[in-house]
């Protein structure tokens, strides 16, 4: 686990260093993208009214990143392309898979009903079957214990996506922005709920913006047990039965953007999530955290 964490940290540092060098090389005053050249007769209108926000928001980021996978015998999730597809109407909106209906929109907050897919299921998508040797606990550390049984097949169990319905409030002011969410499973998959709160504040200077985020989420026992418990029909000598209780996940992250043009930016994102003890202690978990990072070029249409 430590080696995995160190490897991930080194990769993050390398990408951050490359990103910083690229940012410095692209000085605001000297970079080709920061300079306009025009030739020949033109006939553009003089008036420059601010463009109204379009309903659609489309974008794509290309680069490299990873999201670690705390599930045993699973691979980290590579992120090569990050697509952004969203549509915002007066009431309804679609935001990268989330569907929402805005019930209240005021000067300080916006509250919507949102339907989404649970995010824990994604960790169960890239699993391997492995065989392990079980041993007696030896009384002597110098004497290796003999194998107890023939190698036992250990396969992470399957888990389904859950459709969750809930309420989301977005608040902002000079102090920053906050998100409050309460979601409940409506698909009968895990039958649990999740409450979460996030705070972020964006700092902008020149072409650079930095946005640190802090968050906490509380997941109910039903939710945690469905995804991270070892159910009776899944238990084996290698994978003992386990019931996960409710708990808090804590996370912190940083998103940095350097805007090369109105549409193109260098993007760096790092996020660390500390899993609740009841998830981390599960036989299905080999890490007590989820680390995600991404660095690349992002284009917004």
């Amino acid at each position, binding site marked *: 686990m430590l080696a995995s964490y160190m490897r991930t940290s080194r990769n993050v540092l390398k990408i951050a260093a490359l990103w910083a060098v690229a940012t410095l090389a692209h000085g605001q005053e000297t970079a080709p993208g920061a300079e306009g050249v025009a*030739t020949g*007769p*033109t006939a553009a209108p003089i008036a420059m009214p601010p463009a109204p926000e379009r309903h659609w928001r489309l974008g794509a980021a290309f680069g490299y990143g990873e999201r670690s996978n705390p599930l045993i015998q699973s691979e980290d999730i590579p992120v090569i392309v990050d697509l952004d597809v969203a549509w915002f109407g007066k009431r309804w909106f679609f*935001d990268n898979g989330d569907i929402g209906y805005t019930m209240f929109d005021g000067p300080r907050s916006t509250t919507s009903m949102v339907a989404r897919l649970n995010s824990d299921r994604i960790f169960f998508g890239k699993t391997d079957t492995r065989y392990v040797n079980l041993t007696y606990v030896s009384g002597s550390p110098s004497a290796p214990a003999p194998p107890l049984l023939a190698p036992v097949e250990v396969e992470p169990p399957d888990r389904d996506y859950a459709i969750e319905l809930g309420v989301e409030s977005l608040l902002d002011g000079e102090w920053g922005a906050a998100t409050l969410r309460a979601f409940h499973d409506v698909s009968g998959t895990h039958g649990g709920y999740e409450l979460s709160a996030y705070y972020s504040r964006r700092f902008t200077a*020149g072409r650079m913006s930095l946005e640190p985020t802090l968050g906490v989420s509380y997941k109910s026992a039903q939710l945690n047990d469905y995804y991270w418990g070892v159910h009776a029909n899944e238990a084996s000598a290698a994978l003992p039965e386990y019931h996960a209780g409710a708990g808090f996940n804590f996370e912190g992250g940083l998103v940095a953007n350097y805007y090369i043009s109105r549409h193109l930016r260098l993007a760096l994102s790092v996020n660390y999530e500390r899993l609740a003890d009841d998830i981390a202690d599960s036989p299905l978990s080999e890490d007590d955290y989820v680390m995600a990072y991404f660095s690349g070029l992002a284009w917004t249409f």
Partner: protein
Amino acid sequence: MNSRLAGILIASALVAVFPASAADLPAARLIVKPLLCVVDRDTPGCSMTFNIRWKSEAAAEYCLNDSAQKAPLRCWPSVSSGTHTEKRDVTEAFIYWLGAPDGTQRVAEIKIEVLRLDSADRRRERRNRHVWDVL
């Protein structure tokens, strides 16, 4: 028939009298930097210093203008290149353009863009937690 002939003669005479009309202004190359102002809730505008250069194929009288005002920023006599530095606070997009002193013709233009990071619709700034959503 006679009136058509008279028209052609008058037009020919005008061309002969005013051979260097505004339509003949030589093409030019306009270079401006920087081009982008990034604004946010805490930074509603940019204090920017614009370095403006232009070069034309032939010497002529040019004026530098911007779309925010009618009067030229600066005019040059019969020359083929020029530079201008201007410091200004930017909150909205605008255009620098190079043209004839009477404003009838533009030979080059550059748009200074303003990118707003904040939005009147705060739903556009929501972050979801899907695995592929890393930005």
